[in-house]
């Protein structure tokens, strides 16, 4: 890398930045990626296509405005620009999350105000633009139940694997195991979907028939669905959220203070007793937040669930059975993506997306709050 004078760098930087500022309107996307021999201001111009709201790019521009300060300030100009760029990128992320909420609300509003049904309490879903009638009860039910099944199944297994990796397996083996679990996360969800519906679901039929014997419990009533049930979806989702739940538990278990572990050994604990005395109490918050992150992932999973769940006939009665087809928020949107031609009917789906966004936001925020509170304690 050729060494360049700091001042020259600053001047070039300032000029580029000023130029970039003028050209905010037509964003030039010349395909500049990060190579660390490029001048930093180039990064600004390649970040601009995302700048949906130019206001939020303020910080770097403010920094550039101050380049006219003379001599002694020069060394700090580079710093200001750089800090501004980095801060601007951070501001952009914050703005993006806010904009997601704002735009979904704006686009959902006309449809929501025209909704002849109660959005929160109705089971209707008709997006015929002359009479919009839609509500989220069925979607909410399917989404929550399929995610809960996944979480209940994946939770104990993920803890088991995390304990296996951190407390049981020798170090070499545990690295391999961790890699294998990461591979599960790397498989695209559409492949889980086609595998789930064409390979796994037929094999789950006997399990389903077994549960029919327990149909005095409303959850296990026979609704006449051979495959493509909420139960099938939940099992595939369990596999899909296993890696993230394992990863979080693994992290907190691995960070168990060594003196806690040794104290347990010194008391003559068996391995399981050591885990109960030292590892699990320490990792509880992490495990809970991992489970909630998994839940968040499950709530929003789209294509696998879209491919797996069968749609029940319109107007079929509400049922609490998990051996029923159904549509989640995400699969409803994905199934009807082709019918977004009218703004009103698209609005109904965007409203469903908004509810999903709020749902995942709450679950994820809660998960982070739990894990961060834990951090403060340690």
């Amino acid at each position, binding site marked *: 890398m050729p060494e360049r004078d*700091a001042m020259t760098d600053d001047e070039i930087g300032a000029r580029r930045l000023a130029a970039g500022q003028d050209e905010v309107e037509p964003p030039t996307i010349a*395909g*500049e*990626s990060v190579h*660390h021999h490029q001048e930093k201001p180039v990064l600004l111009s*390649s*970040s601009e296509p995302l700048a949906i709201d130019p206001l939020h790019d303020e910080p770097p521009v403010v920094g550039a405005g101050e380049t006219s300060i003379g001599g002694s300030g020069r060394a700090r100009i*580079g710093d200001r620009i*750089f800090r501004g*760029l*980095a*801060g601007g*990128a*951070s501001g*952009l*992320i914050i703005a993006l999350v806010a*904009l*997601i909420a704002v*735009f979904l609300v*704006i*686009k959902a509003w006309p449809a929501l105000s025209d909704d002849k049904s109660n959005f929160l309490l109705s089971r209707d879903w008709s997006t015929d633009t002359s009479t919009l009638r839609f509500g989220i009860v069925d979607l909410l039910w399917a989404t929550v139940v399929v995610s809960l099944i996944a979480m209940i199944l994946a939770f*104990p297994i993920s*803890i*088991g*694997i995390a*304990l*296996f990796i951190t407390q*049981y397996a020798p170090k070499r083996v545990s690295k391999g195991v961790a*890699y*294998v*679990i990461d591979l599960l996360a790397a498989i*695209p969800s*559409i492949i889980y979907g*086609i*595998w789930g519906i064409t*390979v*796994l679901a037929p094999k789950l039929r006997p399990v389903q028939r077994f549960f029919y014997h327990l149909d005095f419990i409303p959850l296990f009533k026979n609704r006449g669905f051979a495959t493509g049930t909420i139960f099938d979806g939940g099992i595939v989702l369990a596999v899909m959220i*296993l890696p993230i739940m*394992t990863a979080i538990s693994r992290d907190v278990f*691995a960070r168990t203070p*060594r003196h806690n572990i040794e104290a347990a*050994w*010194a008391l*003559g*604990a*068996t*391995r*399981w007793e050591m*885990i109960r005395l030292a590892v699990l109490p320490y990792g509880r918050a992490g495990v809970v937040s991992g489970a909630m992150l998994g839940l968040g*992932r499950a709530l929003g999973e789209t*294509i696998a669930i879209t491919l797996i769940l069968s749609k029940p006939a319109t107007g079929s009665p509400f049922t609490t059975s998990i051996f029923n087809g159904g549509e989640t928020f*995400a699969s409803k*949107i994905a199934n009807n993506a082709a019918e977004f031609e009218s*703004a009103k009917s698209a609005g109904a789906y*965007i409203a469903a*997306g908004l509810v*999903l966004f709020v749902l*995942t936001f709450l679950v994820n*925020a809660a998960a*982070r709050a739990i894990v961060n509170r834990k951090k403060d304690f340690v």
Partner: protein
Amino acid sequence: MTTISAPSLLSAKKGSGSRKFKNSLATVLVYLAFGIALVPLVWLLYTVIDRGWKAVTSAGWFTDTQRGVTFSDKGGGVWHAILGTLEEVAFCAVISVPIAILVAIYLVEYGGGWLARVTTFMVDILTGVPSIVAALFIYAVFLATFNGQFAGVYASLALVLLMVPVIVRTSEEMLKLVPNELREASYALGVPKWKTIYRIVLPTAFTGITTGVVLGIARVAGETAPLLVLVKYTPNLNGNLFSGFQASLPLMIKEQVNNLNQANSGTAYHLDANGNRVAGAVANYAPDRMWGAALTLIAIVMILNLIARFVGRFNKVTQ
């Protein structure tokens, strides 16, 4: 970090009766949990390779498109889909990488203030945003508000929302690992902070960041939901990211699933496991193509993951 070996000898003697039993039970359950997790992984990979192999090894798979090929026709390839996936993901990376690395730099090098705290929180939230919601957002902005037409570029923009948090997270970890002594040595020589970051910190963390970028690419390469909403599938080759329908591997798989259902619903016909025609005279090659495209996609994602691991080996800061 992991287990402590010496005291475990002691505990082996100590365990008796129900304590010993509980300990063994826990051991069995923990091993069982790992075994259970392996089942779907092995089963899925076996299925994809077993059923996809035929199509992937057929002539012209990587060089032909699906132009004019119906579900009952033999032949055709995935070139159009690979090209679409590459373009969409590359464009997404070009936008995501600089933003994400700048955010990570801010969090690590300038962090501590309220902006850093809010950003960390928002990156967490962005990590949890479902891909379909990201797609709806881009739809609401570019297609519904600015009247854009379906095109690969919008899918890329939705993927940016999914890729940025992945890269921020890994880059942040890597930047944190850069020893403070390096920064201090640089400051002591009178080098300004920005230049220290640019010339000292970033190059030191470079391989780690690269790993994060490749993992981010691997994550979005298989995303389907945004493509479903923002760009339509075409069996033809379309190299133009900015206009027209564009194929991609996930959309091609979805298209084959549609044909699968079509063929199963009454009028059409399919080959059974032995290659015999069932209920009619028209063969259905959609399953072959579906698994072939799935195998191609998995192969690409796995290769990216392996590259990430391989690059990670040369990491200066974690060694």
